[in-house]
Every structure is written in structure tokens, then in C-alpha cells.
């Protein structure tokens, strides 16, 4: 089972700063292991973020993104107490959804 994302969402002025740290190997499929065998590709393809039930971000993620990637953005029109739901899907069909509340 995939490890939980870490989500931090804080109001800063009239906008919320949202940060999402996903825990994922993000293998490109181009690397080889010690024995020379290719390591199969394994990477996040999309990440979506909803705040208070409304879609605020959708990321198209690929193999050029690092291991354990951090996503961050600011969003207006939200308030402290709103629920943030982040969800990713990877190329093996695995998914992970985590929640946090805007502070």
C-alpha cells in the first residue's frame, strides 16, 4: 500500500498556501538495478486537489518529476476550516487519497 501524502494548508493573507508532499519512487523505467536488469517504470500520472468539494488543481505528472515530489500553490476564495482532498493515480493504477484542513 502506498504511503500517505503529507499535506500542509495554511491561510496567508487572502489566499491559502497549499503544499502536498507525495511519497512515491517515481521510477522512470530507464534505470537499471545492480544486476543490470531494468527497473520497471513506476510514476505518478495525475494529481488532483479539491478544496471544499471544488477542484482547484489538476497536475499532469510524468517521469521527469523527482522521487517524493512536492506540489505547492496558492489559491484564493477558500477559508480556514475548508477540507483539502488530494489524490494521485500512478501508471500501475495504484491510487492514494489524503485529506487535511486549512489552518
Amino acid at each position: 500500500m502506498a504511503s500517505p501524502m503529507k499535506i500542509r494548508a495554511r491561510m496567508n493573507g487572502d489566499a491559502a498556501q497549499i503544499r502536498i508532499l507525495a511519497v512515491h519512487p517515481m521510477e522512470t523505467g530507464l534505470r537499471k538495478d545492480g544486476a543490470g536488469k531494468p527497473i520497471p517504470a513506476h510514476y505518478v500520472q495525475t494529481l488532483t486537489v479539491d478544496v471544499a468539494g471544488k477542484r482547484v488543481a489538476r497536475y499532469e505528472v510524468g517521469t521527469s518529476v523527482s522521487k517524493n515530489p512536492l506540489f505547492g500553490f496558492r489559491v484564493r476564495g477558500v477559508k480556514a476550516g475548508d477540507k483539502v482532498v488530494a489524490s494521485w493515480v500512478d501508471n500501475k493504477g495504484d491510487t492514494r487519497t489524503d485529506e487535511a484542513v486549512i489552518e
Partner: protein
Amino acid sequence: MRLALLISLAAVTAGAGTALAQQRNAQPYREHVPYIDWKPDVTGDIQHTGTYQYWKDRKALNPDWVASKEHQWQLNWKFMDPSYDDTLHGGHIARDRGAALYKKLDAGGAFAACLGARNGDLKGLRANHYPQYSTALGRVVGLEEMIEHCAARQNVTLENGSYDNSAISVYVTEFSNGMPINIDVSKGPLKDAFERGRERFHLRNGATHFACATCHVTLVGRSLRGQVLTTPYGDAAHWPTYRTKDELQSLHVRFAECNRNAGAQPLRPGSPVYSDIEVFLTALSNGYPVDVPSARD
């Protein structure tokens, strides 16, 4: 003709070697020259680099300086500690991993007791009790060495310097967040370790013939390998740290990296020499609050 060339080449290199050797002989090979009077307290930096005033309070760092390459070293990079910087990074992943491993190891409460926690309470353990003299091991040890030892008592291998070992160390250290480091190096085995560590810090060795102090005292404020050297005061308070090259490091692993970069033989994490240096550096953080999970370039 070829042979002659080879011979003359050999002569040239041999000549260079002798010149180098002579230059080295001018200074004793492993000299020990203490550069300054070290005060076992973070305020000792006032007489050293004088930058302490700028990073004394992590929350009150000057944001213009944080953004300025020129001034960052004067802030001792404390803007990458969590009480200033609220971003997320691999240190937070490590902390969670440490928490899970700790919970498993401490299922019966023996792990916490072995580390020296009273009633399983980890608060202040890092700030007030490490490094310490361990009666079980008969020597001065840092927290990571103790984690290895206490895990081994349950037949779990958690090598000092490994990711999992440092992850547990971050977890345990976090309970001391905000508490000033407080180790007493005025007597007993810690005093001896402090003095050995101080001597080691000034001992030149390796291919470059550098001591730790060559870089960390003489060259403070100058740039080296793309980084500007900072004061060693207050450093021990944010370790283990997440290096942005994606590596969780304990203090000893950092020492090994510095040794390697300076062309000296790196030692094993947990080796007595590194523990002595850790005591020395931790004493230079006395009075400065612990803050993890931090990050560093």
C-alpha cells in the same frame, strides 16, 4: 629518446614531490593549532564570527537576508529549520518512518528505557542527555549510536548512519524541539571527550592537509564548492537533517562527507573520534534550541 623523456619526466615529478614534502615538513604533519578559545555555549560565537545576533531567534530572521545570497551565511542557514520554514521535505517523510519504526521497537517499552527515557517520555532526551557517557557501552555515544545498540538488544539491525537509524533519531529528536541544548562538558568523560574533540577539530590531515577548523574557522564567510562556510556554533541543534540532494544525514555522516571532500579518510559513523567531535560541536550549541526536521543544501 623516449626513455630520456620518461626519465626527465620522472625527475620533474620527483622534484615536485620533494618540494611538496619540504613545504609540508615546514609545518608538522599533523599539527594541532587551536585557533580560538572555544566557549562551550552558543554565545561563544559572539567572539568568533559575531553572526549569532542574526540567527539567535529563528523566527525573527531578516527576510531580506534570507533572500540574499550574500547574507545567507550570516544567518547560519537557520531559515531552513522548521520553525522558520514551514515547507515539507524528505525530513518529514523520514520523521514518519522513524515514528513507525520506533513504535514497533518500543512495543514493550524496553527501547525507550534503553535510550534513557523515563516512563517512555522522550521529551528533552536529545536536548539534555545526548551525547552522553553510556555505562552499557563504556564510552561516550551520540543518540544514533545508542539507537543502534538498543535495537541490537532486540536483534534488530539498525546501523548507525543508515536511513532507518537516522529516521528514528529525527523522531526522537523532535520531542526536544524548542528546548535548548544542555550538555555539561565541565567534568567527567564528557569533558575529556570535549577536549579530544576540540583537538581533533584542529588536527590537519588528508590530501589537502586541512583541519576541520581550516574550513570552519579560517574560511568562514568565504565560498567553497558553491557553498559559503558558516560558524560551527549552533550547528548540532538541527541534526539529523535532510540534505536537498535527497539524503537523510546524521551528524556523523556529515563529518564523513567533510572528510571525504577534504581528501581525508572518512571514518565509520559512531567511531570514537566522531563521537568526540560530536561532543565538541554539541557543546558549541549549548543554549540553542533543537529544531527538526530541518533541511540543508
